[in-house]
């Protein structure tokens, strides 16, 4: 188990050192507040600059081919090796919040020959895109590591101040 992880972490560390050595300050020095969906959880402070360092300036890890670097995944390379960078590479410019709204589903399924019909929602783009790397690099993966839970969240998950009293649920619960 540990072997692969550790090697990845090692590579990442080397990448960090090399990139900060060769490309000092080449990135956007910014922390983004991602909070357009906040409800069960607070927003997330996303340190863009730090992540660019972590990935060794490989923007495609997160932005596909849209932020200036070519994708690394062989599958994507077959078609996007030379795809142009986009004016707006923000995840939210392509990943919509409500993917299963009737209108969006029509757009996805009624466009002839559309290739990407499984494009995830914005919420899923974040989690799929962030959690995979975090898991492999011992970065935060717990549900309250990136965003604290709100009161609405505690109610929804029946946790914190809204946690069931021990045992009471055996008698049929429903005390809320």
């Amino acid at each position, binding site marked *: 188990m540990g072997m692969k992880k550790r090697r990845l972490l090692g590579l990442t560390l080397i990448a960090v050192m090399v990139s900060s050595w060769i490309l000092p300050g080449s990135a956007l020095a910014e922390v983004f507040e991602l909070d357009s969906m906040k409800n069960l959880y607070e927003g997330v402070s996303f340190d863009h600059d730090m992540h660019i360092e972590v990935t060794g300036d490989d923007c495609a890890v997160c932005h596909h081919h849209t932020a200036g670097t070519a994708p690394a995944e062989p599958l994507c390379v077959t078609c996007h090796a030379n795809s142009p960078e986009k004016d707006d590479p923000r995840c939210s410019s392509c990943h919509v919040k409500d993917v299963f709204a009737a209108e969006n589903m029509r757009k996805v399924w009624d466009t002839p020959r559309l290739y990407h019909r499984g494009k995830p929602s914005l919420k899923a783009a974040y989690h799929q895109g962030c959690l995979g790397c975090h898991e492999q690099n011992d970065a935060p993966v717990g549900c309250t590591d990136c965003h604290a839970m709100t009161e609405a969240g505690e109610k*929804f*998950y029946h946790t914190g101040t809204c946690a069931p009293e021990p045992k009471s649920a055996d008698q*049929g619960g429903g005390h809320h």
Partner: protein
Amino acid sequence: MKKLNRRAFLKGGLASGVAVAAVGSAKKANAAGDFGGYPDSMGVLVDMTKCVGCRTCEAACNKEQGLPAPAKPFTDMSVYEEQRHGGLPRRTTEKEYTIVNRYEVEGREQPLFRKFQCNHCQEPGCLTSCFVNAYTKTPEGAVIYDATVCVGCRTCMISCPFYVPTYSYSSPTNPVIKKCIMCYDTRLKFGRPPACVEACPQQVMTFGKRTDLIGLAHKNIQDRPDRYVDHVYGEHEVGGTSWMYLTAVDAPFEKIGFDTHLGKQPIIYYVKEFLAIVPMVLLIWPALFTGFHLLATRKDAQKNEESES
């Protein structure tokens, strides 16, 4: 008793049914099995390779369906250690229409999480076997039921290949069926996905027209043969289900609790045969009924004892 598989029971019923009712019901069953589902019905494609086991879907179901408060918070991951008798994993109950189970598969680094709920068969065994017609397969794809006509006979429990319908024992004199209805009343009817689908942070589940989802599933497999087992569970099983599954190559279906021997024929075939013995069964029904009930209440009493200790 624990190994008395419901379908084995049905197939047993089949054999004795044929013996008792004799000749000629097989052809009828064939004709009845040709329905194949509503053409535009909706479905859900579950990509288990993406599930991180956060239980948000369980919480969403609880809220949407107005179910009783859970025994433990939905953030409590100790439920994955819970087992039923015989080391079986958790299952759906009258208070939980969907649950997630964790599977440690040999040769795989991470556990695989499997979400479980009614699969909403194209040709539901529960529907065919129900004597009072409590069940309906809606054109949108959901298998719903009318609890007010349910007499609590539990035939649907026996006919379900996935062990889904459960009974509310809160009122022992009037047990009624409880199961996932794909959020039909509050969402599906209005073209919205079930609450669990929408709540999932990883979009493990994709909602769409069933036929479209089958295409998407095969495209995903083709794109990433190193990630997915080349099989869409539910495309053909028991005549097809509205909920379908993709799993990881290192966690094949048979290793994560899926019955891979169900075959492509709807349960309706077995049920029709089973129904051939119904006239006889009806005579002994009251006795059978009482037996079932006694069994169930005994099980319940045992459960209470256990949780008390």
